[in-house]
């Protein structure tokens, strides 16, 4: 598999076939089992692609630096080949060898809390440092932060082991960056890992394409970690697709107050394994977690006892200063002072007026929401 596959005629024809609305994806997929794209184009469809169409597509693929693979091609990912709802044609950039690594999907809501974003980026960072590829969808929120964690690992290159690569599965054409603010991340993924889509170049990010993207995302993951999700949302579709394929789904527990953790908490109730640290995922992948890796090192200075108690009182909720005063019965000045101190050490963050704890110290590393006592009220 060369890094940049030569765009041969078969690939171009496959790409043109993928653009034809009249050719159903499932039918094309089945036909490709028996015939090459050129045979299909010539004998098996009503309106065969014209030479002009093919030339235009070839030009476009070259211009946008996109590679094409199709069912039956040598470089079509074997993991997807056996999938019941595989895509007949895939467009990709980067390196297909990324799929040979162990792969963990990290997905979640677009409107994540600061704690959720923290979890997504730190978990992905730690997994990447252990050579595990991170599969995600490059959406806003959790998806983006998962790959940001990978990008930080790549920037640092501290690990002796080969770093885990980012694998992005997107819904639009690879040349249509959506959401636009993820452009940098988009480029990072295609340069350091693998970026793929089943949509031909120039495809707009239409809403119906996202659930379809999620099935590829799920199929590519060995373990799927849901960081934060509402009870109904894109991530839950990914979860369904993963469960159909017998892929392990894991969820990060959140405060029952957070509606953005409602979906993940539901998954936990249904019996999914919880994730509070990287070890949980490593165990699920069947990797030895005992001695190879140094214990997780938290660079933050430890909290004072009274501050640790305050962090425990917050119990994973996002609270305003008012609500904290009510909950702790402490003086405003006193609380603000304590929060300021904790913020400067990196233990809490002020997210638009609401304070959130970023990972309470615990045995399992960060993210352990321990010390949860029952707190009445909001």
């Amino acid at each position: 598999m060369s890094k940049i596959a030569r765009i041969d005629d078969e690939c171009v024809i496959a790409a043109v076939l993928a653009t034809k609305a009249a050719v159903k994806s499932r039918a094309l997929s089945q036909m490709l089992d028996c015939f090459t794209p050129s045979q299909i184009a010539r004998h098996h469809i009503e309106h065969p692609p014209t030479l002009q169409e093919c030339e235009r597509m070839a030009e476009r693929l070259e211009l946008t630096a996109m590679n094409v693979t199709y069912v039956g091609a040598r470089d079509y990912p074997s993991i997807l080949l056996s999938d019941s709802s595989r895509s007949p044609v895939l467009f990709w950039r980067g390196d297909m060898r990324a799929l040979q690594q162990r792969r963990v999907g990290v997905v979640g809501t677009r409107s994540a809390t600061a704690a959720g974003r923290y979890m997504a980026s730190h978990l992905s960072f730690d997994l990447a440092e252990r050579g595990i590829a991170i599969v995600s969808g490059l959406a806003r929120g959790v998806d983006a932060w998962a790959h940001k964690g990978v990008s930080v690992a790549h920037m640092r290159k501290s690990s002796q082991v080969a770093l885990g690569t980012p694998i992005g599965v997107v819904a639009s054409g690879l040349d249509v960056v959506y959401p636009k603010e993820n452009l940098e991340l988009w480029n990072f993924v295609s340069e350091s890992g693998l970026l793929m889509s089943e949509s031909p170049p120039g495809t707009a990010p239409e809403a119906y394409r996202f659930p379809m993207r999620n099935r590829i995302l799920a199929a590519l993951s060995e373990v799927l970690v849901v960081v934060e999700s509402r009870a109904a949302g894109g991530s839950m579709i990914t979860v369904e697709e993963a469960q159909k394929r017998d892929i392990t789904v894991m969820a990060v527990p959140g405060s029952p107050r957070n509606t953005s953790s409602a979906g993940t908490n539901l998954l936990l109730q249904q019996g999914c394994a919880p994730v509070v640290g990287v070890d949980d995922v490593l165990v699920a992948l069947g990797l030895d977690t005992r001695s190879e890796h140094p214990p997780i090192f938290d660079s933050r200075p430890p909290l004072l006892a009274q501050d640790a108690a305050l962090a425990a009182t917050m119990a994973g909720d996002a609270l305003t200063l008012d609500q904290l005063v009510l909950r702790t019965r402490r003086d405003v000045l006193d609380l603000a002072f304590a929060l300021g101190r904790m913020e400067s050490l990196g233990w809490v963050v002020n997210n638009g007026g609401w304070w959130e704890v970023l990972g309470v110290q615990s045995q399992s590393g960060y993210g352990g929401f321990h010390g949860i006592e029952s707190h009445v009220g909001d």
Partner: protein
Amino acid sequence: MRSATLLGVQGAPVEIEIHLGMGLPGFTIVGQPDESCRESRDRVRAALLSCDLPWPNRRITVNLANGANERKGGAGLDVAIAIGLLVVQEILTAESVAPYAFIGELGLDGSLRGVAGVVPLVAAIDDRIVVVPKAVLREARVVSQHTVRGVASLSELVQCLRGEQQWYQPEPLTSIREEYEQSDMADVRGQSAARHACEIAAAGAHHLLLVGPPGAGKSMLAQRLAGILPDLSDTDAVTSTIVHSAAHIALPNSGLVSRPPFRAPHHSTSLVAMVGGGTSALRPGEISLATNGVLFLDELGEFAPSVLDALRQPLEEGVVRIARARSSVSLPAKFLLVAATNPCPCGEGAPGICVCDDRAKQKYLRRFSGPLLDRFDLRVAVTRPHVDELLAAHPNESSQQIAARVMRARQYALQRNGCLNSALPADMLDVHAPLTDGAAKLLRNHLERGRLSGRGYHRVRRVARTIADLHSEQEHVEEKHVAVALALRVGVQSQFSGDRVAQ
């Protein structure tokens, strides 16, 4: 004949000349009168006839003269024109009216009506006794160095001028300031952080932005903020009174605006209504009416961007200069800005409960320009109070208690800086607001992490100075004061940055 017209919040004396000549009977007003001024010929004629005073059937020319050659507006010149007509007909002698100036609109029945801006109009006439309608006499007497007479009708005025009747003698002005019925901070349940922010805002005149979901009590807090401000000083009270009078807004019973005004214009308010201008008299806008008081903008995001951006210059300079083709004025606009907004389109704001993604939030907050947001020293998240707090038996601190602390903190600041803390120049911060080592370290930490801009740095120090004034009597600003100032300055567009990873 002397009268005055209004431009902005300043009166300008007008000399009225009348000529009776041969020719077809007629009545012309020259000297750039505006529409309402030109209508005065009909009012004056009707008023004279209803008072059984003669109307000259000759060619009448009235000239309105003042040095500035400006457009003269308003109906306040009616009385002066009527008296002038009586003088030319020799019903009154020129000597008897010489010491007087006249301000007022005439009714068709000869009664005298009040006009907008009596206070600045009276102030503009410095060498004569001013006759005003009795209804606005109290207002007119605010400018104490003037002798002011009040009359109810044209016939009464003529009799007084002839010496047939005594001028009305009003009761002497009492200097006792009235107690105002004002809503009390004690009514606000919970909201300890927001109440605290109000106290700091009042003490240091720091602009305040309240961020919170609908029903959290943002408006309630803002209304009570004016109540914890100290009474206006005498000069400030006169300034505020003049502005209120010029805008023809009812004044309190004492005639003097002695409490800080509270203005809460609706978000559909136009640019002109906000900053002033509009009519040829350049009526003062909401920001001028809020001078020395509180301007509350609820639903900040719903105001037109041009209206919000127009606030920037007055916020900085304390005055607003309005220039039109014919005239330009400078109106006072030294107000405490309190604004309220929802945190995001869904209104909830709390992470984990809000359903808006980052982009939607950013788009919502992009409605406020950065420079405007920068001017809010205090930005506080407000949440709906909890049921327990709503039903709590023990009330919170009352406005009176808070006002006492505010007053004391203001006195400290004035003694030390000569100005309130929000107006402290950046180069004087080290002199008047020295930091302890701990406080300096905390600020440095924030600056280094990029959580604070250079401008924000100075603002935080000013707020910290105010907090120190409220809570201690020490010269130095301590670490906890800075921490609170930082905590009460919510990064409105704050984004979690993975800085533990990025270190």
